[in-house]
């Protein structure tokens, strides 16, 4: 019977707006579908948008506004930089006004520090972090012995830096045969033309590119590859976000792209129905599966806590297990990092078993492997104070 | 007149702009208490000479001394601090400042404020009294609170000269002070000028021979960048070369 209001703080304008809007729609869709009678606690969820224009600073304004308007649940994901800032601000707020603490659900920001050195009791990550995604990638690369040389091309901010760092560490530890022949961090969302980067990749002799680029930085990269007419495999996280699949499909040559993600385009059962409904309603793909995870998790936690009070919910979240796509997920109590599995998918033409194209194109992401949570789990690096 | 040491000395001054040489070996001396008029045809280089003395131009060659200090390479504001002020042929005013504020700015350095500016305007009674005095003398009191842009042409000219006067410099360079003034204004202005420059050194460019002969102790004639003559008014009036180059036959007794 209760209504829980959730503040969605992410870019709804600027270069990342398309992804922000898609995420917002996903949250709202899931809140509607999984709210009320459809969740164990019986709460209704309302997701209200706050535009942070992609900026940490605006995010704080948005957070203030949301708190002033009585929101106690905040969801955010597009940009680890912003997440750091919000997590700090939420911690400060909760210390100053302990009577009404605020919870931050991070549904996409992958910087491991958020649940590592800089973890906070009030921050919960409901997606895999970069260490887990890298672990999945390295697992997969281990099965491709032909691939010997990779190039790391990433955005120069928390997410890209961490991806590069952890990829190198993981490779050094588990795949010494693989050589990182080049590494580059470029300013995020500044470049318009990736031709020089492509030239450098080619010059380095790399056989594949590992990139965490997302949004326009991914689209431009693909365009530059297409313009240079090179078919270099891309190992990436965010090839399915809005705008990317249609760019991939448009090129003169098929692009070999591998993605590590929580989702693919042709899920079965309940999830498949949800995705289809979403697509019908919004004429867009449902790609932010963490929204599903998030609502599921809140419902489960609230039902266990028998309350929507944020403090009580936070208390029961640690160690909570609940069903997600592909199995169960557990919110690890020590660092508030959700333990869940990932798919490795490949970009290929639709076929009878995978009939749903990405973004309405005739290509789609087809699962190659599912790597379970247990195989991805990383050691805890967090030592957080508990209130 | 007793010849004291010259206050202002211009020696061997040359001013070139690219190929054209506008001033050629100009030598001039002005003494304390002397009024020196500079006349000459249009384009002779009178304003250029003023520009060189006041520092708006760096002379190509030659020496300028003020109170026995070489100033040819000195920045403009330092020359003013040594007691040199000038007015402009084409008024140089501060469009949005009131007449009062113009004079206030001009009187500020002589008031000894330097760069120490913490006192509010209303508190500076000595400065304000001085400014009020100047407003009266220049007959600008009625327009004290109007901005320069609102003044008529002649009032703007008056204000331009007024600023030079209010800075109480020992050496004044006035470029065509009465240009644009009506007869009545001129008639009122000339005695005022004589009065205010008593004991100071006045150097002025003027085309109105009436004013020149009324005010000047000596007249320098500049023609094509060269000093043709520098003498008493009577001698200049009689000088045939000057008549040919500048005054014209009919203008020997111009009113």
């Amino acid at each position, binding site marked *: 019977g209760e209504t829980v209001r959730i503040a969605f703080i992410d870019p709804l*304008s600027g*270069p990342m*707006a*398309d992804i922000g809007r898609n995420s917002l729609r996903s949250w709202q869709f899931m809140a509607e579908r999984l709210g009320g009678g459809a969740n164990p606690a019986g709460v209704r969820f309302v997701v209200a948008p706050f535009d942070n224009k992609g900026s940490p600073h605006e995010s704080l304004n948005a957070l203030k506004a949301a708190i002033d308007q009585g929101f106690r649940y905040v969801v955010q994901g597009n940009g680890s930089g912003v997440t750091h800032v919000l997590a700090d601000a939420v911690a400060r707020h909760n210390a100053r006004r302990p009577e009404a603490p605020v919870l931050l659900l991070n549904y996409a920001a992958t910087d491991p520090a958020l649940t590592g050195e800089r973890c906070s009791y009030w921050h919960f990550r409901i997606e895999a972090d970069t260490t887990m995604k890298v672990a999945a990638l390295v697992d997969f690369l281990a099965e491709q012995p032909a691939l010997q040389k990779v190039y790391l091309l990433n955005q*120069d901010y928390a997410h890209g830096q961490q991806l590069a760092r952890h990829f190198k560490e993981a490779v050094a530890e588990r795949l010494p045969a693989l050589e990182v022949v080049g590494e*580059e*961090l*470029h*300013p995020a969302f*500044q470049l*318009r*033309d990736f*031709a*020089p980067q492509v*030239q*450098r990749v080619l*010059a380095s002799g790399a056989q594949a590119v590992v990139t965490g680029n997302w949004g*326009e930085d991914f*689209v*431009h990269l693909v*365009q530059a590859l297409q313009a240079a007419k090179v078919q270099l495999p891309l190992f990436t996280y965010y090839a399915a976000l*809005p*705008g990317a699949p249609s760019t991939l499909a*448009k090129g003169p040559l098929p692009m070999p792209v591998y993605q590590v993600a929580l989702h693919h385009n042709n899920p079965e059962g309940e999830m498949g129905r949800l995705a289809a409904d979403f697509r019908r309603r919004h004429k867009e793909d449902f790609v932010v599966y963490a929204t599903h995870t998030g609502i599921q998790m809140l419902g489960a936690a609230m039902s266990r806590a028998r309350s929507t009070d944020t403090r009580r919910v936070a208390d029961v979240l640690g160690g909570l297990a609940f069903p997600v796509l592909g199995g169960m997920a557990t919110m690890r109590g020590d660092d508030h990092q959700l333990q869940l599995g990932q798919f490795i998918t490949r970009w290929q033409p639709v076929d009878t078993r995978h009939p749903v194209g990405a973004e309405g194109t005739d290509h789609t992401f087809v699962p190659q492997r599912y790597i379970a949570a247990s195989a991805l789990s990383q050691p805890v690096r967090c030592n957080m104070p508990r209130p | 007149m007793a010849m004291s040491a010259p206050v202002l000395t211009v020696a061997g001054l040359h001013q070139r702009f690219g190929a054209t040489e506008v001033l050629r070996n100009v030598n001039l001396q002005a003494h304390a208490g002397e009024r020196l008029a500079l006349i000459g045809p249009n384009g002779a280089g009178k304003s250029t000479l003023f520009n060189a003395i006041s520092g708006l131009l760096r002379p190509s060659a030659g020496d300028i001394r003020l109170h026995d200090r070489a100033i040819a390479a000195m920045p403009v504001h330092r020359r003013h601090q040594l007691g040199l002020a000038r007015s402009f042929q084409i008024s140089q005013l501060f469009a949005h400042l009131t007449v009062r504020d113009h004079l206030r700015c001009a009187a500020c350095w002589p008031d000894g404020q330097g760069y120490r500016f913490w006192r509010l305007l209303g508190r500076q009674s000595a400065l304000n009294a001085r400014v009020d005095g100047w407003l009266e003398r220049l007959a600008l009191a009625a327009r004290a609170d109007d901005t320069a842009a609102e003044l008529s042409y002649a009032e703007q000219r008056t204000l331009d000269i007024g600023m030079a006067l209010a800075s109480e410099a020992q050496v004044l360079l006035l470029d065509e002070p009465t240009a644009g003034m009506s007869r009545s204004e001129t008639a009122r202005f000339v005695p005022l000028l004589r009065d205010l420059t008593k004991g100071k050194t006045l150097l002025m460019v003027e085309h109105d021979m009436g004013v020149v002969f009324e005010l000047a102790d000596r007249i320098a004639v500049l023609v094509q960048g060269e000093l043709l003559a520098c003498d008493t008014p009577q001698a200049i009036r009689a000088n045939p070369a000057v008549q040919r180059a500048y005054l014209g036959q009919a203008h020997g007794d111009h009113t």
Partner: protein
Amino acid sequence: MELFVLSLLNGLSYGLLLFMLSAGLTLIFSLMGVLNFAHGSFYMLGAYFAHTLAGLWGFWWALLLAPLLVGGLAALFHAQVLRRVAAHGHVAELLVTFGLSYVLLEVVQLVWGRGPVDYRVPVSLSGSLFTLWDVRFPAYRAFTMALALIVLGGLALWLRLSRGGLVVQAALSHPQAVQCLGHNVPRVFMGVFGCGAALAALAGVLGGNAFVTEPGMAATVGSIVFVVAVVGGLGSLWGAFWASLLMGLLQTAAVSWDLPLGGLRLSQLAPLLPYALLVLVLALYPRGLMGQRES
């Protein structure tokens, strides 16, 4: 060697595109004294118009019509808005063009969406002109370069030969005096503004598909163009030309020769270079490299 020649050519073609943009800006500034902050927006508008027109009638019509359309709109803007505020000085004009840049950005996003649009190089020009040590030089870049040079020639000729140039230059200091000589100053200004905008739009038509056509393109190019125009010397067409080439080469070079520099790398410094150059040049030559006047 091949990298060198290629970046040289890329730098030149980027520089020439910059020149087309800064030529418009310089024209508007040198002739009207207006710091046109909407210049990047005209560039963007040119690209978007070209995208739509190319979809309707093909690239060549777009190349012809988009600059004309943008020029016409800019002229209209001048007649309706800019002319009225001109009396209040250049800062008022600056403010209005700033406002216009916001409005155009929003309108473009409303009409064409917030993401990039698919505006491509026409098939007839998408081949490569020649191959140098295995590296293909795209024909489209050569086409852009040629067009930019033609524009420079045309502009220089116009400024040299026509009285229109004289009229506007004179009107910069004493507009009323020019009017009193029988010249219809507002109309000439309108024409100049329209031409400058059309030049920017032409750059947009050519740059929009060489790079990407998206709402951020105005901002990306906006301040760089200012830097170019200022470094070259505001108001000097030749200055803009050399500064554009310099900037194009510099930036391409910095990006493609990614030397390590202490803890940093040259490519990371690339976005900083234009501004460092700007400060350096202005500190040494306040009028820019070839500028004749200051304000």
